[in-house]
């Protein structure tokens, strides 16, 4: 299986492990990640205002490239995934935006949201299957109490993202189970970590992140799992004593491809 891959800027710099393990695990599971040529930063956030066009064009280009190749467009970073998915939805359902974006981009054929945008978790669940992942696990993480942290970008807005039940998601828990570990469910798993507001108000972000980790700790978690570099940063900066790891790292570990 071959999919188009949009790593995103953070995975090239501060979140190299997220990228590295995503590639290794995919290889181990028989999926080829074909990186989008000359991809540009997604911008980190999807501006909801209807008159913002230019800031969304890099996503449109990536989406179109995947369409031309006839592949789904994969990303691991929650933010990239969120922006790609929302942009794709706008291209599909907002005629005005699609018209303007196509005018800018001048593709051979107009892009109308044809590409399937998938997150790494969806690749595992829907394209590979968690049962297959389970079979491929070499070092099951038996007994490890892992708390999935969804944050907001993976799930919301639910109408567009459609990854899972927005309020009671199970995809990451099923993933954790596939690796042989025990998922820990806690109420703050889909609450915001503070996000980009850390640039403006460190205290605000710290408050939110520590609430998340406190909630995970109370539920008995030993380790918190995330797909988002910013979530990881905020959670780690909260000052709580709780390891936070990328989901691809844990996957690579279970598949036995973590070490070089």
């Amino acid at each position, binding site marked *: 299986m071959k999919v188009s891959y949009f790593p995103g800027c953070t995975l090239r710099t501060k979140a190299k492990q997220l990228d590295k393990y995503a590639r290794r695990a995919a290889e181990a599971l028989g999926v080829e990640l074909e990186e989008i040529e000359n991809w540009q930063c997604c911008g980190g956030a999807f501006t909801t205002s209807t008159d913002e066009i230019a800031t969304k064009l890099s996503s449109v280009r990536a989406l179109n490239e995947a369409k031309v190749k006839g592949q789904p467009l994969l990303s691991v970073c929650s933010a990239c995934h969120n922006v790609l998915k929302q942009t794709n939805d706008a291209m599909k359902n907002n005629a005005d935006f699609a018209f303007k974006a196509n005018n800018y981009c001048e593709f051979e054929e107009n892009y109308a949201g044809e590409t399937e945008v998938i997150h790494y978790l969806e690749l595992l669940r829907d394209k590979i299957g968690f049962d297959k992942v389970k079979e491929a696990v070499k070092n099951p993480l038996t007994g490890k109490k892992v708390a999935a942290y969804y944050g907001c970008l993976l799930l919301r807005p639910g109408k567009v993202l459609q990854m899972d*039940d*927005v*309020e009671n998601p199970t995809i990451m828990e099923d993933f954790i189970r596939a690796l042989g570990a025990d998922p820990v469910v806690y*109420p703050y798993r889909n609450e915001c970590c503070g996000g980009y507001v850390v640039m403006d108000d460190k205290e605000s972000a710290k408050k939110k992140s520590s609430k998340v980790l406190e*909630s995970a700790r109370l539920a008995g978690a030993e380790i918190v799992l995330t797909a988002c570099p910013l979530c990881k940063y905020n959670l780690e900066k909260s000052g709580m004593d709780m390891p936070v790891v990328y989901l691809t790292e844990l996957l690579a570990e279970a598949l036995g491809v973590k070490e070089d």
Partner: protein
Amino acid sequence: MQRIGVFVCWCGSNIAGTVDVQAVAEALKTEPGVVFSTNYQYMCSQAGQDIMKQAIKEHNLTGVVVCSCSPRMHETTFRKTAAAAGLNPYMVEIANIREQCSWVHKDMPTGTEKAIILGKAAIAKVNLNTPLTPGESPVTKRALVIGGGIAGIQTALDIADAGFEVDIVEKKPTIGGKMAQIDKTFPTLDCAACILTPKMVDVAQNEKIRIFSYAEVTDVKGFVGNFTATIKKKARYVKEDVCTGCGICTEKCPQKKVPNEFNLGMDNRRAVYIPFAQAVPKVATIDPDHCTMLKTGKCGVCAKVCTAGAIDYTQKDEFIEENYGAIVVATGYNPISMDKFDEFAYNQSKDVITSLEYERLMNAAGPTAGKLLRPSDGKHPHTIVFVQCVGSRCSACDEKGKEYCSKICCMYTAKHAMLTRDKYPDTDVYVFYIDVRTPGKSFDEFYRRAVEDYGVHYIKGMVGKVMPEGDQLKVRASDLLANKQINIDADLVVLAAAIEPDKSARPLATMLTASMDTNDFFTEAHPKLRPVESPTAGVFLSGACQGPRDIPETVAQAGAAASKVIGLLAKDKLTCNPCVASSNEIMCNGCSSCANVCPYGAITYVEKEFRQPDRTTLVRRVASVNEAVCQGCGCCTVVCPSGAMDLKGFANNQIMSEVDAICK
């Protein structure tokens, strides 16, 4: 040539506001056949009707056109008026210049112009009208009530009281419905069982009433006065007439882990069960999905312990056909699923429950024997948060909630809060509300008592998220009046779930050709003036199948529906709609096209002798319409290749002349 009178109604300013009625009356005066034209303030008033009667007599009118409101409103009125003046009522046509003209257009010239055209179309039609005489059909003097909740029970009792036979079809093993699950009733706080179970017993003992419990209506044919319903009596594997209801089988059955639907799955029942102590009929039912004997053929304990010999594992579903003159729909409601509202953590914590579940927790016959204990750990909750409007007034997306107000939640929540504070004064009770809606007799006083006398904390705002943490539920909510976000550590959260029509209503509506609104509530024939009748003749509505309502309203409507049924069944003959199909035998070639499309089987073929021009006789096969069975849809008229079939009252040439008049 007809002699037509035109009567233009002002309807006060409803029509006259946007239509120059004078000009309309004037313009229509010169139409072919019109000999009289006038306008009046309220044609439907006595004075207006008198004007019509007088004009009919004075001008020897043979046809009448009333330019007024919708024919659905006053066609019958004006037809009666015409009949009183000696004119055939079917010589009256209505031009709808209110709903379809003055109310939807804004300026006078446009409205007037359109009203004149609509008037001309009606005149063109009346010119081709012929006097019609309605036929008659017999009435089967029995009624069918679908649904055995309080609505169905009350309707059945009232109809039986008037001396007519009634059958109740209830899909559950017992009648009683939702009311049987309720603990106390607002605003008087009498115990629901105490007032409901005597009625259930009355039903069982009434010799005019038969109960088909654990049964469903699978097919309905026929029309008002002459329905035939097929009832599926599901196999309950217990002989109903032999079982004494002693309940020994329900104690000995080894299959103990079946969720008890009567207590909403909060405790278990056996595979053979009687839903509750006062069930009617009080007979056991075997649940085939859980019975070991039925699934594997090994067990048979219930048959061994049954002294009456009532158990019969070989029972099959049974279909019976019954005839009825009237059908009452009383299929009721259900709370909606809370799956889409997991911000309230219904699926994440056992201590987040719906109001109906709370009702069972409070009930002495419920899973906790009436003690208020949390489902998770059986501890007494000291802080309870009630959330109103969960799924009601929700327009965010279709599959999530319901756009309407569920109406009963404000009151039952006030009741729950009050009863909780009354029985457990050590418990803090919070109610989050958007609006408290209490328009009912003694309702607002009741709600105020909860606040003022019982100290229930009513907070204007909504709960945003419920977070189960440890053995507590962290409730995050807004207090709009304090402009604060508040956090409450609750032991129990109760969701006032929106209510929706029972799932069986939709297929039933199709069977009955009764119309429904977009929420699957049955629609009434007229929202104000015919609230308990379906637009389909002979089908009546009782209770929450028509819209959210509380018990007093349901009972009132049940009685109203019953009185309508009684009115129908009291007649020996029904006047049929004379606007039925008829075939011109000379033109008919006996091809059977019409019979093939007729949904009622109203068309048969007869061999008929025809005199030929050369004086010989020829026997031909021609269509013949049974006027009592034909409902007048007109489908046959379109398929008839020779144009022999036509529909009285909506004849081909009449509709064509309307088209011509409009397109002139």
